């Protein structure tokens, strides 16, 4: 670390000041000429066949310009999932369908001259829907008599299991060894069923898209997206427009967390623009974001562990049922991740089976949500570890330290379980989990608090719990990021990356990487990102890929540029390039310089040193002129996991079940933290999201499948008054395959809070909850059941 001069330092985010003032522009802030305002009319019914849509009245509403419904849009199947091509998610979605499959399913789009006309137009559209039997229970989705949700030409784009006749959107089964024999031989087994629930990513900026035709008759899509290149491709294929005619630009984005790794609004806006020639503006209301965009997939996980006399988990079986909602975006990959990111963590397992199924229901659609299946899997896994450790009489931190995967080790799961393709074997090359566990435990006061059931306020008892996790850094052999750079006269550089900054700070971190590689300062790097015309390809912001994959591309590119600078400097100084020594943003002739040509024998200091600026001017104007520039791409054969331990201290009110989180500790190994405050910020935001998901955030549905609490206030988000004391510890390791030793850190922090809190509740009360969210009523009921119905009596008169 002592050798780095830019990475590892708290460089201020390049756009922080502009954002603070409110000068930076988000999608809906851009001035657009006479846009049409677009809005959805959505289904009020969970499952039904559209008998008729009558738009005649709506068409006559003054200001209504266009109406799209299933009768006048392309009817090809696609997936909205923002993934590489061919997507592993089933092609089961159409722009509009004649069947509606959940309350909130879009039925038509109205485009109007004003918001008022749009409102009136939407109200005037008459839709008659004939109800079909609804399916809300994922456990029943594959029953022979269950209503079938997808009965047309839906299909999988790659050869993976897809059986819509069974409402099966995805299926994964992998294994090695012999689990039956393993369980039979085990000293004991623990088998438990865990369930996790729906949630919204709830970024503060709703989905927003603006489209227009530019002066060269090209379609421009300005969108709050995590996946600008996937948007371009998917819109092109869906609307039969050549890729070359489309430009996608991502401006500032107000948070994504996965909800915008999806192509939801762009095709409709584009279609309206193409048909009318007018700009189109489509911004979802908050209610629509909750109801009609994407969510975290609920899962039911049956986890069985067989443990030998030594305490080693020898046999592990995870049987997962995932509710993908009405459409299958990410149905295969989130499901796979519940196993792929969780099961390798305890790699001394000899017998393993992972069976997962995603099923359709007439409920909101699951998507890519930070953690991406690992979050659900870790809720189960970490409680299982707590149960096993307790049964063995071993302290959980020690139990974890003894058995987790270590540097130099691998797991059969890496190879067996990929994301639609086969998995990729890998060996762990950096792992600081032990230090995470030790430092995190010390920070929370584990030894002083664990098992002590210390009293808090009257009627309460306190406990501590922990959780560990690994994630990944990009999808191996699939994710690709690229960068290009050019040099300017003043020694500054334009860095063009496809990588998508959602507020995560990737523009800044990538600038730091470039600056470090070049030997200059971050202020000399001007970043332009996420414009499909000007920046090279990048899969986008997901799978914790940006720092690791895109960062490596930037580093490669910068090193190539540096070589060119060195070459020009050598020409200027009349020496061989190898004779030069770099000193920051300058090159000097080394002590053993071999001189050639006209400048041979030069001893004048002025002729033995050139700055980057000197080089730039020379290269652009003086001799053998060329633009110093380069481009590079990166894919990875591995996905080195960050590791993390999280600790929670809770206070449980024994009479009411209310749980307060008093303190929370994050300890994470993300390799070298290229920008420590940004890495901390990722952990802090993810952790609070996880805490809120564990305790208060939830989707409440009516009997007819309608979401009842589609607002920030009723959903259960935490604000500044609710938060616990939070500490974040960055444990440094060095990942040899990462740019300057870095791994990614964007997702992992959301995986631990739910199980850590559940484990802490157990520590405090002796009661374990297997189902999320851990509402106060559920805790209360569990306490009552445990006490035989007498819980809470001590609080009475």
């Amino acid at each position: 670390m002592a050798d780095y001069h830019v990475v590892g330092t708290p460089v201020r985010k390049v756009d922080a000041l502009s954002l603070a003032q409110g000068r930076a522009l988000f999608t809906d802030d851009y001035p657009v000429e006479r846009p049409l305002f677009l809005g959805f009319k959505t289904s009020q019914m969970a499952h039904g066949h559209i008998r008729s849509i009558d738009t005649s009245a709506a068409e006559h509403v003054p200001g209504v310009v266009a109406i799209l419904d299933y009768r006048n849009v392309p009817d090809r199947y696609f997936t909205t999932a923002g993934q590489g091509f061919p997507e592993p998610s089933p092609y089961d979605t159409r722009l509009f369908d004649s069947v509606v499959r959940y309350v909130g399913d879009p039925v038509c789009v109205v485009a109007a001259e004003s918001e008022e006309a749009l409102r009136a137009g939407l109200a005037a559209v008459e839709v008659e829907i004939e109800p079909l039997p609804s399916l809300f229970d994922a456990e029943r989705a594959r029953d022979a008599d269950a209503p079938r949700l997808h009965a047309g030409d839906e299909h999988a784009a790659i050869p993976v299991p897809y059986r819509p006749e069974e409402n099966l959107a995805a299926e994964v089964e992998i294994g090695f060894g012999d689990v039956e024999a393993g369980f039979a031989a085990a000293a004991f087994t623990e088998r438990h069923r865990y369930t996790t629930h729906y949630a919204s990513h709830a970024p503060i900026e709703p989905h927003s898209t603006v489209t227009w035709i530019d002066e060269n008759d090209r379609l421009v899509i300005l969108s709050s997206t995590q996946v600008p290149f996937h948007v371009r491709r998917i819109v092109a294929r869906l609307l039969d427009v050549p890729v070359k005619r489309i430009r996608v630009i991502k401006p500032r984005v107000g948070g994504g967390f996965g909800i915008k790794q999806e192509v939801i609004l762009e095709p409709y806006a584009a279609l309206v623009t193409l048909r009318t020639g007018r700009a189109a503006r489509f911004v979802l209301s908050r209610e629509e974001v909750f109801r009609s965009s994407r969510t975290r997939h609920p899962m039911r996980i049956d986890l069985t562990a067989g443990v030998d006399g030594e305490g080693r988990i020898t046999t592990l079986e995870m049987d997962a049922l995932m509710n993908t909602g009405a459409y299958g975006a990410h149905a295969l990959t989130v499901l796979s991740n519940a196993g792929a990111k969780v099961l390798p963590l305890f790699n001394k397992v000899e017998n393993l089976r992972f069976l997962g199924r995603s099923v359709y229901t007439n409920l909101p659609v699951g998507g890519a949500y930070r953690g991406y299946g690992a979050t659900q899997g870790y809720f189960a896994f970490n409680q299982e570890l707590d149960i096993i450790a307790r049964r063995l009489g071993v302290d959980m931190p020690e139990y974890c330290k003894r058995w987790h995967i270590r540097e130099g080790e691998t797991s059969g799961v890496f190879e067996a379980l990929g994301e639609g393709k086969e998995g990729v074997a890998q060996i762990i090359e950096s792992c600081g989990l032990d230090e995470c566990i030790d430092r995190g435990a010390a920070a929370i006061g584990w030894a002083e608090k664990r098992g002590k059931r210390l009293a808090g306020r009257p009627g309460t008892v306190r406990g501590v719990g922990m959780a560990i996790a690994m994630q990944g850094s990009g999808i191996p052999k699939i994710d690709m990021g690229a960068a290009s750079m050019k040099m300017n006269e003043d020694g500054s550089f334009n860095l063009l990356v496809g990588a998508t900054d959602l507020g995560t700070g990737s523009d800044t971190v990538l600038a730091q990487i470039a600056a470090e590689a070049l030997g200059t300062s971050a202020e000399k790097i001007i970043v332009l990102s996420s414009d499909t015309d000007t920046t090279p390809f990048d899969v986008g912001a997901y799978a914790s890929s940006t720092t690791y994959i895109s960062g490596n591309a930037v580093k490669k590119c910068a090193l190539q540029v540096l070589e060119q600078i060195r070459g020009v400097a050598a020409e200027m100084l009349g020496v061989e390039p190898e004779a030069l020594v770099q000193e920051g943003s300058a090159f000097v002739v080394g002590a053993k310089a071999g001189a050639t040509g006209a400048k041979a024998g030069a001893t004048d200091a002025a002729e033995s040193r050139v700055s980057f600026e000197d080089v730039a001017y020379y290269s652009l104007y003086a001799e053998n002129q060329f633009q110093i520039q380069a481009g590079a791409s990166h894919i990875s054969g591995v996905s080195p996991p960050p590791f993390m331990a999280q600790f929670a201290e809770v206070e449980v009110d024994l009479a009411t079940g209310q749980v307060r989180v008093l303190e929370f500790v994050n300890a994470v190994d993300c390799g070298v933290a290229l920008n420590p405050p940004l890495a901390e910020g990722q952990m802090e935001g993810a952790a609070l999201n996880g805490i809120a998901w564990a305790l208060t955030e939830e989707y409440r549905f009516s009997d007819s499948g309608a979401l009842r609490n589609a607002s920030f206030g009723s959903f259960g988000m935490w604000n500044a008054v609710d938060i616990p004391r939070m500490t974040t510890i960055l444990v440094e390791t060095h990942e040899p395959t990462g740019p300057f030793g870095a791994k990614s850190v964007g997702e992992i922090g959301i995986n631990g809070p739910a199980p850590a809190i559940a484990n802490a509740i157990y520590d405090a009360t002796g009661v374990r909850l297997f189902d999320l969210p851990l509402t106060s009523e559920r805790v209360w009921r569990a306490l009552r059941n445990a006490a035989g119905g007498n819980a809470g009596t001590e609080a009475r008169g």
Partner: protein
Amino acid sequence: MTGEFVINGETRTLEFDGADTLLDLLRANGYTEVKQGCAHGECGSCMVLLDGKPVNSCQVYAATATSLAITTSRGLTVDGSPHVIHQAWADSGAVQCGFCTPGMVVATYALLESNPNPSDEEIAVALSGNICRCTGYVKTFDAVHQAARWIAEHHEKGGA
């Protein structure tokens, strides 16, 4: 209908619809730093000062805001330069996606005007109407404390 609005010290005669909120009016007239996150008064990203008091502009009818002093985050700049609150926010790592930030800045300004040296608890209450999904609010507190320190220093040096 038209009305006279005093926005960031500038009096403007603006057209609006009777059903418009102050948020609608501001965004339609170039004040895009005032964001729409929910339009229900629950997230605070539309927060402005109305006669010095923080309000959710989506919860104010434009028709009732004429002749009242309206201040947005951009209005806090001093001679075109960022206010120290902007700098403190930018410096503290409290800005991730930035969508909640203009509202947070406005709430911070109102807090520090009446309470130049707030405790963590007082900061939490003052910002309790501004939801942030990115930061977990941890560096948010650092930003406010930093702003308070810089404002105090500025006053010590004889600034206004």
